[in-house]
């Protein structure tokens, strides 16, 4: 998506990395110093919105790109798409794990426990476990094309399950959650109404997504180098200038 031919200038191939870094840096500075709504229980910890919630938005975006690679692999069986799916899934797992840990810390000081029986917490934890299973499944097979195919199919399955557990399950009628927007708690939209938070939160989300893409692409490029090195004698080399995300 972003990869340019080598002949293009530095800015046109790296602008999104700079943008992502600056946006997150901006969200750190303004997120800690800016004005926030005065709310009971939350107090200053409402600022975690800029850091904890952005992890989940980032995770969703990164898993979506991983899904895109898996679908592309099934349609063109280019091994680079398999590598892409795996590395983006890894970054998504990183974001999700950080989201769970930071959420746990936040819960300890607002809800009073490290882990509460909340559908969003359990759903997120199950999603992360599903993606752990993806990594284990992919690593359990040796034959390249078979591994790539099975992993791609499972990745599509994992993505749908993740959407169900993160997006659908917490929204069911019978399910109560301590999170905003559920069970009579003030909704996410009430933060949205606060102009001061909105101008920090959305740039932060975009910034973390860009940084997640950056990390994933670095891992992909390193893996492609290793792959080419291993297949140096064969004609299976991946062309670096191929237009793949």
């Amino acid at each position, binding site marked *: 998506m972003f990869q340019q031919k080598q002949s293009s200038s530095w800015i046109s191939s790296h602008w999104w*990395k700079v943008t992502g*870094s600056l946006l*997150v*840096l901006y969200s*750190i*500075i303004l997120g*800690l*110093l800016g004005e926030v709504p005065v709310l009971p229980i939350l107090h200053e910890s409402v600022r975690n919105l800029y850091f904890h919630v952005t992890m989940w938005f980032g995770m969703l975006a990164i898993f979506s790109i991983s899904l895109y690679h898996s679908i592309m692999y099934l349609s063109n069986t280019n091994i680079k798409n398999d590598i892409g799916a795996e590395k983006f899934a890894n970054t998504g797992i990183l974001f999700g794990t950080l989201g769970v840990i930071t959420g746990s810390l936040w819960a300890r000081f607002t809800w009073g426990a490290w882990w509460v029986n909340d559908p969003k917490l359990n759903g997120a934890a199950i999603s992360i476990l599903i993606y752990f299973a993806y990594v284990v499944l992919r690593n359990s097979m040796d034959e390249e094309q078979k591994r790539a195919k099975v992993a791609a199919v499972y990745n599509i399955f994992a993505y749908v399950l993740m959407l169900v557990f993160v997006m659908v399950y917490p929204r069911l009628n019978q399910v109560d959650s301590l999170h905003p927007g559920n069970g009579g708690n003030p909704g996410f939209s009430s933060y949205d109404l606060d102009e001061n938070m909105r101008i920090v939160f959305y740039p932060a989300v975009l910034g973390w997504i860009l*940084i997640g893409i*950056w*990390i994933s692409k*670095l891992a992909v*490029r*390193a893996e*492609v*180098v290793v792959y*080419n*090195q291993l297949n*140096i004698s064969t004609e299976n080399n991946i062309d*670096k200038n191929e237009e793949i995300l």
Partner: protein
Amino acid sequence: MKKSYNWLLILLLTLLNNVMSAQNTIDMADTMRSNGKIYVVVGVISIIFIGIIVYLIRLDVKIGKIEKNQNKK
């Protein structure tokens, strides 16, 4: 005898009070100390984040060099 003691005590207390109040106001209201020292935290987190970004940039450059090398062969 007792009178002179009282005088000394008052002097000591006054001195002590002066020292204490001097210590209370020694916090200077420069930028990094104001607002409950939140700027220090902002600085620390920013430095850590910039450090990670610098590390990513170095990785990016290194992988780019290896890619170039490999494509030459």
